[in-house]
């Protein structure tokens, strides 16, 4: 597959790098530290594609069978 196309694949959910303020809000809602967010590797194909950096938090919007739409968050690590 050609590069740049994977974001359009139907099985790849929407990934977005979150703003600093959004991350703070997220951490406050769950009363957690950044390290407690599930991780995703920098080498992940989508992470490379959206050019996220180590320490960024990525918001993933998925289709959910039970809830319709579901938000997941991933901390980018090496």
């Amino acid at each position, binding site marked *: 597959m050609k590069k740049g196309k994977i974001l359009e694949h139907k099985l790849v959910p929407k990934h977005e790098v979150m703003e600093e303020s959004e991350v703070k809000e997220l951490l406050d809602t*769950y009363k957690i530290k950044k*390290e*407690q*967010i*599930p991780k995703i590797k920098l080498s992940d194909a989508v992470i490379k594609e959206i050019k996220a950096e180590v320490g960024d938090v990525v918001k993933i919007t998925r289709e*959910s069978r039970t*809830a319709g739409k*579901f938000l*997941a968050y991933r901390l980018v690590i090496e």
Partner: protein
Amino acid sequence: MRTKRIKGIKFGLLSPAEIRRMSAAKIITADTYGEDGFPIEMGLVNQRIGVIDPGLRCKTCGGRMGECPGHFGHIELAAPVIHVGYAKLIYRMLSATCRKCGRVLLEEKEKERFLAEIERQKEKQADVGDVVKEVFKEAVKNAVCMYCGEHQRVIKYDKPTTYIEIDEEEKKRRLMPTDVRERLERIPDEDIALFGMDPKSARPEWMVLTVLPVPPVTARPSITLESGQRSEDDLTHKLVDIIRINQRFMENRDAGAPQLIIEDLWELLQYHVSTYFNNEIPGLPPARHRSGRPLKTMEQRLKGKEGRFRGSLSGKRVNFSARTVISPDPDIDIDEVGVPEEIAKELTITVNVTERNLEAMRETVRRGKKHPGANYVRRADGKKVKVTEINYEALADELDIGWKVERHIRDGDIVLFNRQPSLHRVSIMAHRVRVMPGKTFRVNPTVCPPYNADYDGDEMNLHVLQTEEARAEAKILMAVQRNIISPRFGRPIIGGIHDYITGLFLLTWGEKKFEREEVLEMLRKITVNDLGEPAEAPYWTGKQIFSMILPRGLNLQFRGKMCEKCIERGLVCMKEKCPHEAYVKIREGELISGVIDEVAIGSFKGIIIDRIFRQYGEEAAKRFINDASHLAINYILQAGFSFGISDEDIPKEGEKQIREEAVREAEHKVEELIKAYEAEELEALPGRTLEETLELLVMQELARARDEAGDIAERYLGIENAAVLMAKSGARGSMLNLTQMAACVGQQSVRGERIRRGYQGRTLPHFKSGDRGADAHGFVRASFKDGLSPTEYFFHAVGGREALVDTAVRTSQSGYFQRRLINALQDLEVKNDGTVRETRDTIVQFKYGEDSVDPSKGEYGKVVDIDEIIREMIGAEAGA
């Protein structure tokens, strides 16, 4: 308390220095106890290496029996011996290193390569075994040492502990343990890493023993027999042997005995030390007890099912528990368990005596060993007194506040009840005790499904809870009625089975009429305050009677098991007027239409139970299940219900129809298919070969024949037939079962295909080679009642074997899958904020199940059932 984290575990070998360092005493005497009955000094039951006699104190730590954990001692071996556990490794190391300079026989470059590889594996936390194996394999290939130029000799390993070196002239020389040790000592530290070992914690020469650690006496306690004679542990016996030979060896050597004798003694010492570690070494006769029983030494203690790991650590036994066979008792509540009096007298609950229960406890103790009595009493000073025939009255009078009484369990006590394998949480539930005569645990048949129990000899375990907190927790979380709804599929797992379904089916089916007396008889165990007006005075209908146990105000409608799926077939559902009575409608707690079957009250389905549980709570659901089972049993008892071989009888014309219309026609068609195939007129289906197409069509045809036979049988038998009734109501068995019994067993298969295995071109010598007919490939024309022909019987056995193997394989595989899944998930927790977190509080899922819905509380995949709410709002009026 400060918590610490285990960073790592390191395994290594004990060095002689370390063995001496951890030793509390040097053992030189083989004797244990002296004539005075006290342990002798320097002996194997040394007072410095632990105490097992009450009253004595440890000379090392000063602890009494039970306080002192024991300390190691040591034996200085007169000559080194090989440790059997490492004999193979020693052989490989000898072969891989130079006999003169001790270096590993590999070029420097290769060594670097291997070391890097080992390092890489370690970083990955992977096994280094494969790399080490490679090191050994490469090293033995070099016949000349690249460091000192020494020519290597072939070393032969003679199991279990002998090494022989063969020189260039084929002369053999035995390597004594001293030689072996010397060679291993010469291996430099930097080469040891090539064997995947850390030279700091495991030098290879430590595999040749010069000092033997002696385990503390607490690890090998002696037992005193009734005769007052002491019987020592097997390990002690073995150590005695070792010390004796060790001493003889020394004496002989000091006396300058001939080499031959010394070698014999050395061999004997080697034998004793070897069997001390493992008494099941191939090639060595096991050391035996005087009685001829093989001794249980080190490895035997650890290994196998009854060993330390599987037997003592993973499988501990607990107190306050009982186990016996279970048997049914429909007259007890679903959350009760019948406990034999014999067991009730053995299991106790400790009660603190207070102002408020003093009199009651006195009364309990005064009953002594009679059932609701007590076994032990603990005084205020902590002294435990056994309640006996002689002292119970005195104890009862003496009983005071602050004492504790270990009283028998009695009716109403909360206990845990369990059946293995405990695969899901409902395998252990809390029941209320009910003490009864007999020797079995009595269980209400409706709670069989969660335990997956039956009464063909199943045994179950019972645990008596010992603290108030435990009892409260069990009552609130684990009670049977709490667990009626399974968290697995969100439907009741407890419900009617077998006769309960049949009973209610018969009661509510059609327009049954009952007189007042009959109604009262049926309801005699159920609390019903108002019989209401008889529908057809003076008769009450079956549906009316069933309605009496429904909660008032219940509104519900659904399609039962009898439903023919009219809507799916493009027809109109006739609802209340359904000819099969499949449309169950309940209005204001009144059964308006439909018949009660498995879908209504059965376990795993149970729509009515489900609704009552959600709308009226667990107590109401429990009451409903109890009432329904009593009603069902009372009715079926009165109506009578039986099944026998004559119920499989089909009238002559039916039989003829099956044979001639269904079976023969199908066989005819099969023949035609084969003819077409052989004439190459058959057209292949897409993606299949011609042969596959034929097989497929033949299978289809024969399956159709069996179904048709079943339909004919069903037509002749009708719903009045007990087997049909049970199948249709979902009580037991299926129409397929009945078809096979009464009409035609049908095609037998292996891996979804007709049976083809056997001889070349045929399954059995009874058929012609190349015969593709129905008979030759496992079509069983007969019914079980008719009896199978010899060839049919054989094919049936072939197919049956596959089913048997399948279940055996499936259970073990799915068991292992489940184990792995549970191990991975067991520490995850749903927190109060709805997140799923693991033990370090890192989040796994931001919202449990993405919708935060407990499957046992939601409405089958949805948070709420909107249709039902709307119906509730408007339907109650409109539908009335």
